[in-house]
């Protein structure tokens, strides 16, 4: 039994090597499919991670106009602290804001635009809470008549919109990835199907001889499946190599543009390393086995 299986695999390998250029198209097409699927998986992780990162770092900021007396702001701070379940409320004075400005990693000339004498930075209340409902209620109070003309901007609703947008993007990415993935999978299945068909036709005589000397059905058919499986496995290998060297390539650009979020994305991708690879292996194997099986069934009576 084992020797039988071993010989089938050997025949599959020999066929594969003999098929040369014909197999390359099948391998490349399958690789392309796997790359499409992988890319969408990674983009999806990235968007979701970014959304989570934003969600977690969410704190609410209310910016006060300069003409509002400090007591009013302190009043509000006290009110929020006593009435709502918040983790912290902190008052950022103009001086605090300036200090923060000075520690930011921006160039000196920009820094120098703001000085003690000429400080347009607003006073701010920073509110943190684990509960978005609480933040919503606070937002409503701040948007009420009492504070009109005092607060010129509340960051929370803006952040909310960003998060909503991002989850919409994530859904879109998921859906289009699925559709494109299916299309590409179908195309590579057709390519493998035809490769095996051509192989069967070009070996008609050999297959006949094998059958005449008593080769069993599995001995004649399974090598073709093995051959297709090799396409799939090679495609998976290629995809893994391309995926992870691709990630290395975009790494530096990603650090510059995505800042801290990139580290989250990266750890998300690497912690889902096996999920990505298993998906690639699964898709590669299913496509190659299913399409070659159909081809063998159809063209090897």
């Amino acid at each position, binding site marked *: 039994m084992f*020797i*039988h299986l071993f*010989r089938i695999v050997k025949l599959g390998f*020999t066929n594969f090597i*003999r098929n040369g250029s014909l197999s390359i198209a099948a391998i490349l097409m399958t690789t392309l499919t796997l790359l499409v699927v992988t890319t969408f998986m990674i983009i999806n992780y990235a968007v979701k991670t970014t959304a989570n990162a934003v969600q977690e770092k969410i704190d609410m900021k209310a910016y006060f106009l300069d003409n509002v007396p400090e007591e009013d702001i302190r009043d509000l701070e006290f009110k929020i602290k006593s009435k709502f379940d918040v983790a912290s409320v902190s008052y950022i004075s103009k001086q605090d804001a300036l200090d923060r400005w000075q520690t930011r990693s921006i160039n000196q000339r920009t820094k120098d635009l703001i000085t003690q004498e000429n400080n347009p930075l607003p006073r701010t209340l920073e509110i943190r809470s684990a509960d978005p409902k609480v933040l919503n209620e606070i937002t409503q109070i701040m948007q009420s008549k009492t504070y009109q003309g005092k607060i010129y901007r509340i960051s929370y609703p803006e952040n909310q919109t960003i998060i909503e947008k991002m989850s919409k993007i994530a859904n879109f990415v998921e859906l289009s990835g699925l559709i494109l993935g299916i299309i590409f999978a179908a195309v590579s299945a057709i390519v493998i199907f035809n490769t095996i068909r051509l192989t069967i036709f070009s070996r008609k005589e*050999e297959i006949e*001889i*094998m*059958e*005449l*000397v*008593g*080769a*069993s*059905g599995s*001995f004649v058919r399974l090598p073709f499946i093995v051959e297709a499986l090799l396409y799939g496995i090679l495609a998976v290998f290629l995809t893994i190599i391309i995926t992870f060297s691709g990630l290395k390539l975009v790494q530096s650009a990603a650090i510059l543009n995505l800042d801290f979020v990139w580290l989250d994305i990266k750890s998300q991708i690497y912690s889902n390393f096996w999920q990505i690879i298993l998906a690639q292996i699964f898709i590669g194997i299913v496509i190659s086995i299913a399409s070659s099986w159909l081809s063998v069934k159809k063209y090897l009576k």
Partner: protein
Amino acid sequence: MEFQEVSKHYSEIKALDKITFGLKKGDFVSLVGPSGAGKSTVIKLLIREELPSSGKIIVAGRDIARFNQRTLSLYRRKIGVVFQDYKLLPHKTVYENIAFALEVCDATNDEITERVPKILNLVGLADRAQSYPKELSGGERQRAAIARALIHSPKILIADEPTGNLDPANAKEVIDLLMRINRTGALVLLATHNAQMVNALQRRVIKVERGKIQTDAEKGKYL
């Protein structure tokens, strides 16, 4: 093993026309007749390379047309065939071609490495083991085909013009080999148009002409 009123038509051509005969275990039967008589067709039908247009071929009490795939491949493994056109696998060496017939029967690697060189020696092809069929002469291909047919010690040996490409000395050797196989109990069916050879055998001769059996005689002669 019996042919019962078997006919084979290729569109208009009647290759075989209602032929009936039986073969028994241990027989050595020569199937003779001029070229185009239908000898190869008998063999093709016997190994179910082709199906009869009408009539039945019964082996061990069963109609071979009704064998399923599994039974058919097991049946073919019990038969060794030297095809008139050799039917060697072009992408395998002589060694691999012969080993393949054993691999198909699920022989172990040890059996293969033991038996293949022996049979190559027997047919005088030891030094061509690593050649591909296209690098061989007609006679060498014929001997490779004979080696493949013999390698798994078949119960039934069918040889279609196995001496067609051999010089008389080599032909004599092949016939002697067939006789030896026959003495071990195997049924041998030899299709040939070489009269001298058949006459020397003094065994059963079935003579076909234009798809019909002309004579079927024990200790027959091919006149």
